[in-house]
C-alpha cells in the first residue's frame, strides 16, 4: 500500500540529498520567506516543503500529476487537512505506547506489537471511512487511485482477518512449535505452528491420538521456568518479529502519507495567505525542456509580497518565447533584481507542481535552476571577490546540463568594467552554445551594449522603466541598453535633501 501522491507510482524520496545548488538558491531567491509561509510554523511541514520545492521535477507530465492533485486539494481543503491530522495522530499514537526496557524479549516485542496493531487498525478503519465518504468527489488521477486502493485493500473482510490474528496472537491455548535436532542434538529451527483441530472425543477414547510425553517444571525450579520461557520465546521469536515489522510498515505508510500530504498542506497555507491579500495565482503551463518558452503576465516576487503585510507588489509581463538570453539593464533599484528573483521563483514553483505567483505563466521546464548573484556581504578585497565569484561560477559549471537556466545578478562586476564584461561575454557565449538559458541582470553598459550590438535572434533586452520625472515604476519593458545608468537619480534623491 503506497500513497503515491507526489509521484505517479513512486514514493516521495526522503533520503535523497538536496541538489548542490540548494543553498545558493535559498539565499539568492529568498526562499526561506516562501518556505515559512507554507509551513505556517510547523517544523515538519517546513522540512517537507523545502525538500519538495528544491527537488525539481523535469517532466511536464510529472508536474501535471501534482497540479491535478493540488486542484483537488484547493477544492476540498478540509478533507486534506483531516487526512493529514489522521496520519499525525497515528504516528503520535504509536509513540505513546510503552516500549519497555532496552533488552526486548520476543514476549515484550509481541505484546507491544499487538497493542500497536490494535491502535493502528483503528486508524485504518477511519482512513477507510474517509475514503468511503469523500473519495468519490476527488477527480485527480492521484487521489482517485489512492482512495480506490484504500477501499480495496482495507476491505471489511481483511480487517476481520487482522482482528482474528490479534486474538490468536495472545496465545491463550499455549504455544505450539516444531523443532529439529541440531549440532550436539540441541533443538534447532524452532517454528511456530498453527495447531490442527483438536482430536475428537472418539479419538480420545479409542486411544487413536498421537504418542506424546509430558514434562512439568517442578515448583520453585526457577531455572527450569526460565528455560521453559526461553523455549517458548524461540517459538514466538519470528512471529513477534513479523508483527513488529508489520506495525513498522503500517507506520511508515502513515509517515509517507504525512510527508506527501505535507507538500499540499503547505500549498494550501500559502494559497490562503496570498488570496487573503488579493494576489493572483495560477497553475502554470509546463512545456518540454527543449522548447524555449517564457510567457508571463503579472509575475511578481512572492517572497517580496509575503514580506509586505498588505500592499500588493508590481508584476511584470514578458514575452520571451524562443529566446535563450534575457538581459535586463537600466536604473539601479529599478526592479531588475526583483524581476530576476520572480523568474527564478516562478520556475522553481512550477517545477515542483505548485501554482505560480502570476496571472499566467508558461515556460519550458529546465534541467536545473542556478543562481549567480553578487553577494553584497562579501566585503573582501577586490581580487578576492572576483576569485570568489569565479569559483562559484566554476561550481555551477560542474553541475550544468543542457537546458538548464542560470540567473545572473550583477555578476563579474567585482573588477573593472572592461575585464568584467570580457569575462561575462565569454561565459555567456559558452552557455548559450551549450543550450543553457541565461537571464542576466547588469548595470554594466559595456557588456549589455556589446551583446545588443550582435543582434542575436534569441536574445531579448529589457530595461527598467523610468518616467519623464525620473521616478521608477519598477516595471521592466523591452528596450536597448542605455549608456548611463541611473545613479544620477539616486544621487539626486538621496543627496539633494542634504544639499
Amino acid at each position, binding site marked *: 500500500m503506497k500513497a503515491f501522491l507526489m509521484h505517479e507510482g513512486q514514493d516521495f524520496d526522503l533520503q535523497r540529498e538536496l541538489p548542490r545548488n540548494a543553498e545558493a538558491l535559498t539565499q539568492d531567491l529568498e526562499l526561506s520567506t516562501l518556505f515559512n509561509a507554507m509551513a505556517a510554523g510547523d517544523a515538519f511541514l517546513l522540512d517537507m516543503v523545502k525538500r519538495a520545492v528544491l527537488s525539481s521535477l523535469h517532466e511536464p507530465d510529472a508536474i501535471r500529476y501534482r497540479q491535478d492533485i493540488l486542484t483537488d486539494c484547493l477544492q476540498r481543503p478540509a478533507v486534506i487537512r483531516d487526512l493529514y491530522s489522521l496520519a499525525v495522530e497515528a504516528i503520535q499514537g504509536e509513540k505513546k505506547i510503552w516500549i519497555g526496557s532496552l533488552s526486548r524479549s*520476543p514476549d515484550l516485542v509481541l505484546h507491544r506489537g499487538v497493542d500497536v496493531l490494535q491502535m493502528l487498525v483503528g486508524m485504518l478503519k477511519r482512513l477507510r471511512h474517509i475514503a468511503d465518504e469523500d473519495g468519490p468527489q476527488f477527480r485527480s488521477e492521484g487521489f482517485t487511485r489512492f482512495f480506490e486502493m484504500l477501499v480495496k485493500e482495507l476491505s471489511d473482510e481483511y480487517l476481520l482477518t487482522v482482528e482474528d490474528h490479534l486474538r490468536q496472537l495472545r496465545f491463550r491455548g499455549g504455544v505450539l512449535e516444531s523443532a529439529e535436532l541440531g549440532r550436539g542434538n540441541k533443538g534447532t529451527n524452532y517454528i511456530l505452528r498453527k495447531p490442527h483441530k483438536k482430536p475428537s472425543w472418539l479419538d480420545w477414547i479409542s486411544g487413536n491420538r498421537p504418542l506424546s510425553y509430558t514434562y512439568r517444571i517442578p515448583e520453585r525450579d526457577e531455572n527450569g521456568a526460565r528455560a521453559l520461557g526461553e523455549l517458548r520465546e524461540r517459538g514466538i521469536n519470528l512471529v513477534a518479529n513479523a508483527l513488529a515489522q508489520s506495525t513498522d510498515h503500517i507506520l511508515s505508510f502513515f509517515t509517507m502519507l504525512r510527508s506527501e500530504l505535507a507538500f499540499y498542506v503547505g500549498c494550501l497555507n500559502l494559497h490562503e495567505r496570498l488570496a487573503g491579500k488579493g494576489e493572483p495565482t495560477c497553475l502554470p503551463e509546463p512545456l518540454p525542456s527543449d522548447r524555449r518558452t517564457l510567457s508571463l503576465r503579472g509575475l511578481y516576487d512572492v517572497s517580496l509580497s509575503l514580506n509586505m503585510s498588505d500592499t500588493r507588489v508590481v508584476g511584470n509581463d514578458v514575452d520571451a518565447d524562443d529566446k535563450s538570453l534575457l538581459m535586463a539593464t537600466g536604473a539601479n533599484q529599478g526592479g531588475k533584481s526583483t524581476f530576476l528573483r520572480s523568474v527564478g521563483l516562478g520556475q522553481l514553483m512550477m517545477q515542483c507542481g505548485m501554482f505560480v505567483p502570476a496571472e499566467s505563466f508558461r515556460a519550458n521546464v529546465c534541467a536545473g535552476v542556478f543562481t549567480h548573484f553578487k553577494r553584497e556581504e562579501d566585503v573582501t578585497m577586490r581580487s578576492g571577490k572576483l576569485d570568489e565569484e569565479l569559483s562559484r561560477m566554476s561550481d555551477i559549471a560542474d553541475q550544468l546540463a543542457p537546458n538548464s537556466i542560470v540567473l545572473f545578478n550583477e555578476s563579474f562586476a567585482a573588477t573593472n568594467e572592461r575585464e568584467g564584461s570580457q569575462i561575462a561575454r565569454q561565459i555567456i557565449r559558452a552557455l548559450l552554445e551549450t543550450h543553457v538559458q541565461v537571464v542576466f541582470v547588469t548595470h554594466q553598459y559595456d557588456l549589455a551594449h556589446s551583446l545588443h550590438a550582435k543582434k542575436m535572434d534569441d536574445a531579448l533586452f529589457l530595461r527598467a522603466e523610468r518616467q519623464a520625472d525620473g521616478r521608477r515604476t519598477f516595471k521592466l519593458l523591452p528596450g536597448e541598453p542605455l549608456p548611463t545608468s541611473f545613479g544620477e537619480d539616486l544621487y539626486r534623491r538621496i543627496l539633494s535633501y542634504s544639499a
Partner: protein
Amino acid sequence: MPFRSMLFDRPEDGRRVDERQEPGFFADLNLDQVVESITAGRNGYNLKPFFYTPLSSVDAVRYRHEVLRDLQGEALAGYIRTFAERMRTMRERLAQADKLRYRYQREAWFLDAVETYGDAVDRLAQDLSGAEISSRGLAAFRDYLTGYAGSDRLKSLRAETGKLKADLAAIRYNLHIKGDRIRVSNYESEADYSAEVEETFEKFKQGAVKDYRAKFPAWADMNHVEAAVLDMVAKLHPDVFLALDDYRGRHDKYINKIVADFDREVQFYLAYLEYTARFTNKGLTFCFPEVSDRSKDIHARDTFDLALANKLVDGKSGRSPVVCNDFHLRDPERLFVVSGPNQGGKTTFARTFGQLHHLASLGLLVPGRDAKLFLFDQLFTHFEKEEDATNLRGKLEDDLTRIHDILTRATPNSVVIMNEAFTSTTLDDAVFLGEKILGQLIELDLLGVCVTFVDELSRLGPSTVSMVSTVEPDDPAVRTYKVVRRPADGLSYAATIAEKYGLTYERLRERIAS
C-alpha cells in the same frame, strides 16, 4: 620406503625433538621473534621445537627443500590447508564432547568428530591422488594415505557414521508449551503460523525494516529442560538413540597415528611459506640456498633481517622500506669485520648473517635472491649485554668468560657472530683484545662476523673482509642501512658531511679564493 615423517628423511634424526629447548643464540639474532611470528596462530601444533633443531646432513636439507618446492604450488598447499582445517574442527568437536554433561549430547559431538575425520582423510586422499608431487616425503605419504583411505576399516566407519547422522537429522518433533508443562510429540505437518501473519501484512511493506528478532545464546550445552525434552524425543525414536549409544563404545580409538603426525609436521612448512608470503608480497625475495658442509665459499644477494623486515612490512611503523644487503666470502676469506657509523645497519647485518645460516640448517628458504651457505655444526653469538654498565671491570671479565667459552667449544665447522665487544674498555684494550680474539678465530678457520668500532681489526689478514655501514651521500643524517664491502678508512662519513657543508679541501679553497 615406508612413510614415517614429513620432516626427517631418517626418522632417528627426529627422535626426542620435542624435548629441545630454545638455543642460546636465538635471542641475540632475534630468531625468537621470527619463530614467534612464524608459529603465531598455530599454537596447537607445538611447532617451535622443530625450529630449535638444525639438520646435520645435506641430504636432510634436500629432503625438506623438495617438500617445500611441492608446497609452493598453490593447489597442493590449498588441499593441505583444507585438510588441516578439518582436523582442527575434529579436535574442537572431540574437546566439546568431553566437556558436556548429557550423554546424548556427548555422543552427538563425538559422532560429528568422527564424521569430520573421515571426510578429512577421504578428501585429502582424493586431492593428493591428482596432485603434482615430486618430493620423496609427500610421495611416500600419498601412497600411505591412499591405502588407508581405501581400507575396509575406514570405509565402514564412514558409512555407519553417515547413516546415523542422517537418521538424527530426519527427526522433527513438536513442543506444546502451556503454563509450566511441555508436551513433546511428533510433528504432524502443522502450518507455519509466523509466515501466515507475515503474509497478512505483506501489503504494507515499505522497504527496509528493523530486525526485532532476539538473539538466543548459542551455548553448546543444554539446560535440564532441554535435556528432558531430548530424553522425550529419544523415547519417540528409540532405535536411533540406541544405535547412538552403541556407536561411541565401538569407535573410541579412531585416529591414525601417522595421519595425525602428518597433520602436525606439514604445518612446519605451511607456517613458514605463509610467513614468507608477507614479504614476497612487498617485493622481497626468498630463495633455496645451496647448502654445503665442505666449502666455506658463501654468498647471498638482496638478503635482509627477517625480524626487522617483519616490523617494517607490518605497516604499523611508518619507517623506510626494507634495505637489502649482499655479502660474499671467497677462499681464504672467513670473517666479516663490520665497522662504520652507528645505527647504520651493522648489527642488522650480523643478525642477518646468523639468521640465514640457521634457517638454511632447518632446510628452509632464506631471505635473498641467491644464496650459498655453510651447514655448520654449532652457531655461537656474543652480543653486548647492555644492562650492567656500572661495573666495568666485572663486565669485561664477564665478556671474556663468555668468549672463552665459545672459543673452547667452537670447531672449524662452527659459525661465530660477535657484536660490539669491549666497547666499555679503553681503545688500547679494545684493539689488543680484539686482535687476540680475532686471531684465535682466524686460527680456528671458522666462518663469522665481528661488528666493531675498531677498524684496525678489518686489516688483520687475508681471511678478514671489511664491511662498512653507510649513510646517504647528500644528507649524512639519513641512514641507508646499507652495508657494503669496502675498506674501512674511517673517512667516508666525514667526507660526506664536509661536502654537504662545502668544507672539503677543494671547496674550501674555491670559496676562500673567490
